[in-house]
């Protein structure tokens, strides 16, 4: 029907503003500040391995928690009445319209030693419990910020699962546990994959959450990269090398998850 060539400006735009910048980044990663070729930047990253391991671990934990919160929630919502579904979805989306910086900052008020939660616990003579500036607080921040990204794809795929499928499984003698394993999980796999990537990617690369809730002690890859560009250790070559590694980690994760899913993915479900 219409000509394919009308997509060309888009291709051109994306090449200039997506591919070329990544090319420049790769160039920086393999050069010294003087511009000569080197592997030193990549080699030096090994000294930051602990930070990489820590970031990936925290992101994995956050993703797992998100999944375990979202899976039942999405299921409950997908079986509820139309009105209930609509209202709940609305309530789920609404927080995303408020600046995530402010919402994360508000968690500080809640978690601090003199914060609201500890004051509340103080009424029962408990505490104060050290909550802020711990890895746990960072994970909480991630779960809080990215939970909707897990619920939405799960919900939209579960809404399509027919009740009769589940009933059939139950009639054939499956208990709840087996229904989940044999029916729900396989059928909602594409949603799970989208959800995992949409939570894991921003979690592993965040620098705001770790800075606000981690108190500078829980450094993550994002902090490290930010410091190399506009933070306290100026070294764009090193920063580019780190970003490159981060991107490679991402691509590996994406490669693994998408190999589970044989459909051609078109359109993230939101």
């Amino acid at each position, binding site marked *: 029907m219409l000509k394919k060539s009308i997509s060309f400006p888009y291709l051109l735009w994306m090449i200039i503003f997506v591919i070329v910048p990544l090319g420049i980044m790769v160039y920086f990663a393999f050069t010294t500040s003087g511009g000569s070729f080197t592997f030193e930047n990549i080699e030096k990253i090994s000294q930051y391995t602990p930070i990489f391991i820590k970031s990936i671990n925290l992101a994995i934990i956050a993703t797992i928690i998100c999944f375990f919160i979202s899976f039942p929630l999405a299921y409950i919502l997908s079986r509820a009445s139309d009105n209930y579904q609509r209202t709940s979805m609305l309530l789920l989306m609404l927080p995303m319209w408020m600046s995530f910086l402010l919402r994360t900052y508000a968690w500080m008020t809640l978690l601090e030693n003199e914060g609201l939660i500890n004051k509340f616990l103080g009424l029962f003579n408990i505490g104060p419990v050290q909550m802020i500036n711990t890895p746990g607080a960072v994970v909480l921040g991630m779960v809080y910020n990215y939970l909707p990204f897990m619920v939405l794809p799960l919900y939209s795929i579960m809404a399509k699962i027919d009740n009769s499928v589940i009933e059939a499984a139950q009639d054939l003698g499956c208990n709840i546990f087996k229904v989940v394993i044999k029916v729900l999980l396989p059928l909602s796999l594409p949603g799970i994959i989208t959800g995992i990537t949409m939570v894991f990617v921003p979690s592993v690369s965040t620098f705001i959450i770790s800075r606000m809730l981690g108190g500078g002690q829980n450094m993550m890859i994002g902090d490290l990269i930010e410091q190399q560009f506009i933070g306290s*250790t*100026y070294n764009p070559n090193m920063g580019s090398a780190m970003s490159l590694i981060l991107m490679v980690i991402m691509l590996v994760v994406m490669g*693994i998850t998408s190999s589970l899913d044989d459909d051609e993915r078109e359109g993230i479900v939101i």
Partner: protein
Amino acid sequence: MKKIALVLTFLMALFVFPFTENIQAKEKVNLRVYNWGEYVSNGEDGTLDVISEFEKKYPYIDVEYTTYATNEELYAKLKSGAANYDVIVPSDYMVSRMIEEDMLEKINFDNIPNFENVMDNFKNLSYDPTNEYSVPYTWGTVGIIYNKKLVDEKPTSWEALWDEKYTNMILMFNNSKDAFGIALKKLGYSQNSTDKKQLDEAAEELKRQKPVLQAYVMDEIFDKMSTGEAALAPYYAGDALTMISENPDLGFVVPEEGTNRFVDAMVIPKGVRHKEEAEIFINFMLEEEIAKANIEYLGYSTPMQDVYDDLDEEIKNDGISYPDKKILEKCDTFINLPDETNQYVQELWVDILASGQSSVFELIFLIAVILGLGLFMIIYLRRRKKNM
């Protein structure tokens, strides 16, 4: 369709309007001032709003005022080429580093008649020996801020910041320069040490300190100290006064080992577009009334003779803004260190921040997750093949 077109034209008009406005007022000069956070009197609580005073006096100059948190951040912003400023306010050692790297313009002092009022001992300082590039803005010392309600006795030594009694109640600088300065002073070395052994020792000290710390902070300290969230923290004397005025339970002390005395100076970066206006701005900041308003708001110490003479005796003698000669004798000023040392300190610093983060347990966790995922995938893919 028509409706959409109408909306679009309306939106376009909305955006073109401010642009045309800009073109008409093209005569106006945009002066970009990049300063530390909380570092100018801003009109809050009845103080003088210095920036709008300036704009009132020079209506053709429009000040775009933004802030940074550390010298290194300022350096990175300039160096990356992503930003251009007209006036910046780095500290002593950063001034000399910028001079060495040819990042600053020479100032035309004919445009800064108020420079006369700067005290003689703030002219020709070691970071700018011929005084061609910089004009001092404020100075001060680093000391310990403590909460009298939460700390049993007045701290006297840097040792207090390592005290296990106050685990989780201590804050520390989130920049390598000040943190290493404190550790080196505590060990009795010069804060400008270039000796790798001494630096390693300092790094060990800082690592040892990490378990007792609540957080590494910069300006977040205002909030955390005045709400009583933390008990002890090292910070700049001027800011300590601001915090004390918000929370009278706080006190400030300069440790007996001596400390860092810093000077923050106004300079003009290379390739600036409005050099003359930048000089007008610098001169304006030195005017007695303005400098006084700033000093009163900031609590930092003034390098201006006329402002100092005018101060209350109380402030002159409180020992915070203008410490005794005895203490000042034990103070050093940061100087610019060789690149190699800076690099080395940076590496140590990141190492400190990353330390204690990853245990064997974490590595095992990661490997377990990866193996688990791999196993799941193999089983899953096999099963799928069978079904097909």
